[in-house]
């Protein structure tokens, strides 16, 4: 008799191998979401929305009905889905270019309306899919392919703190920033992702979990250096914690 599995593919992930670069933490976050969904819901209770960016193919990975949204529009698409299917758990998965630049209006207004959806927001401070251009969350001093001398406030503007901004609104039930750069933080990230989805199931309204994530390829770092960059450079600019909870 075979031993019971202690580690298996969650039912909310398909068999399709991830296309993500080595050392990129998208895969960890996908897995956390799939674990949480599998622990709480049946597959037919969940509908997901994929973004434009590195996670554009997320619809190939999450094993439930999925939508692919236009760049930045995922919160609007999720709003339409949730209104038509109010009993489903609806989530979006978006990066910083998608959510905090082109999709800022959709994000802020979905939050202000208190749409009962969950957004998982990947902040790696860069446009990964298009080759490493400056993002709204790129750090001051950070070099990208469109801020080749390093981002300066004078030339490129300042980093946007999405979670802090959204926490000023009355609509959201949970806004938190987590990281996945070490085991302790991965476990904490899962806890908050679970809370976000539970809030939706309980009808509490909008929740957004910002996940500090790595992009070793476009940062020009090894996977280990990339994890260190998160803890040493990103967390001071984007402090972890729960910014709003109702």
């Amino acid at each position, binding site marked *: 008799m075979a031993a019971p599995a202690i580690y298996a593919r969650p039912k909310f992930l398909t068999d399709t191998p991830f296309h993500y670069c080595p050392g990129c933490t998208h895969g960890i976050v996908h897995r956390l979401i799939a674990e949480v969904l599998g622990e709480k819901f049946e597959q037919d209770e969940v509908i997901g929305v994929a973004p434009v960016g590195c996670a554009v193919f997320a619809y190939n990975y999450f094993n439930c*009905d999925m*939508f*692919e949204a236009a760049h930045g*529009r995922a919160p609007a698409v999720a709003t339409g889905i949730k*209104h*038509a299917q109010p009993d489903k758990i609806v989530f979006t998965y978006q990066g910083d270019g998608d959510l905090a630049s082109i999709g800022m209006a959709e994000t802020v207004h979905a939050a202000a309306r208190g749409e009962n959806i969950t957004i998982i927001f990947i902040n790696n401070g860069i446009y990964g899919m298009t080759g490493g251009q400056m993002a709204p969350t790129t750090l001051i001093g950070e070099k990208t392919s469109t801020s080749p001398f390093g981002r300066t406030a004078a030339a490129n503007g300042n980093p946007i703190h999405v979670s802090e901004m959204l926490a000023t609104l009355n609509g959201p039930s949970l806004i938190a920033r987590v990281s996945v750069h070490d085991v302790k933080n991965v476990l904490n990230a899962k806890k908050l992702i679970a809370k976000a989805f539970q809030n939706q199931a309980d009808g509490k309204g909008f929740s957004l979990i910002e996940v500090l994530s790595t992009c070793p390829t476009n940062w020009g770092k090894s996977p280990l250096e990339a994890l260190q960059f998160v803890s040493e450079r990103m967390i001071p600019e984007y402090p972890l914690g729960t910014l709003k909870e109702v």
Partner: protein
Amino acid sequence: MNRQMMKGNEAIAEAAVQAGCRFFFGYPITPQNEIPEYMSRRLVEVGGQFVQAESEVAAINMVYGAAGTGARSMTSSSSPGISLKQEGISYIAGAELPCVIVNIVRGGPGLGSIQPAQSDYYQATRGGGHGDYRMPVYAPASVQEAVELTQRAFDVADKYRTPVMILGDGIIGQMMEPVTMPEYTAPAFDRSWAATGWKEGCGRERAVINSLYIQPDVLEKHVNKLARKYAAISENETMVEELYMDDAEYAVVAYGTTARIALTAVRRAREDGVKVGLIRPVTVWPFPEKAIEDAAGRVKGMLAVEMSLGQMIDDVRLAARDRCPVRFYGRTGGIVPGVREIHAAILNMKEEL
């Protein structure tokens, strides 16, 4: 429902509700505001949902979400707002979702004016957004016809899984006319493609509402499939009205409100002894090419009349295949062509051709 006076915008909204539209996403812009206003109170009565979106871009993407679950959904706007919706319309066409988009056209370009116009013809009939696609476009000439075409639009959207546009000039939206709401029963449509929650063994494939086909050969196949759909729509859904064309030596081609004004001018010219008829495209895409082509072989000349600098005239010329000369008369910028001016243009055409 009894015959009653209704404003065009409200009649379109009520027709949509009676056609089973339960989800409306809109944004204020003149001259279509009565549609979202009506929906915001009416949908509550029938258990539907209204969301005032933060922008036209968001509104059309909310439609994308609701339509992707198979629900009858609609948005409305006017010219500058319709430009903003083009992103979403292209994605909806690519993902093959049914929905209805109302454009109560105002003068352009840019902010233009808030007065009626037909200067969005190119945008509406050529798809409007990026990529290889078309969409059926209905151009009502009365409030009653706007009601009937709105309900037909939902059926055509579901039948072919395509966005459908109601292209009404500002007059159609703002004018009050007597209306009888038709008895409407929705045909049954297969919605097994819709994303309504899936699990293994539920009897269908996992739904992915998507317009991304990263492999060129796969995208080409997809676009060719869309093209076959557009060919079927052209074959089955083209609508045109012909008046006084049996013995016509000249033809006026006009759509929407302009066609009604042109009809009065045609009748006056008939009183003057000019054998002139009217061809009114009811669908501007698919364009009634055959009706134009046939007529072009019989008449001495055609006159396209539009509330624009002349956009439909390109389609008239293409369909006429040089079988007869095609003249143009139009006013633009929010100015409505008058009966006298069109009448004079008809007499000019007779003098010269």
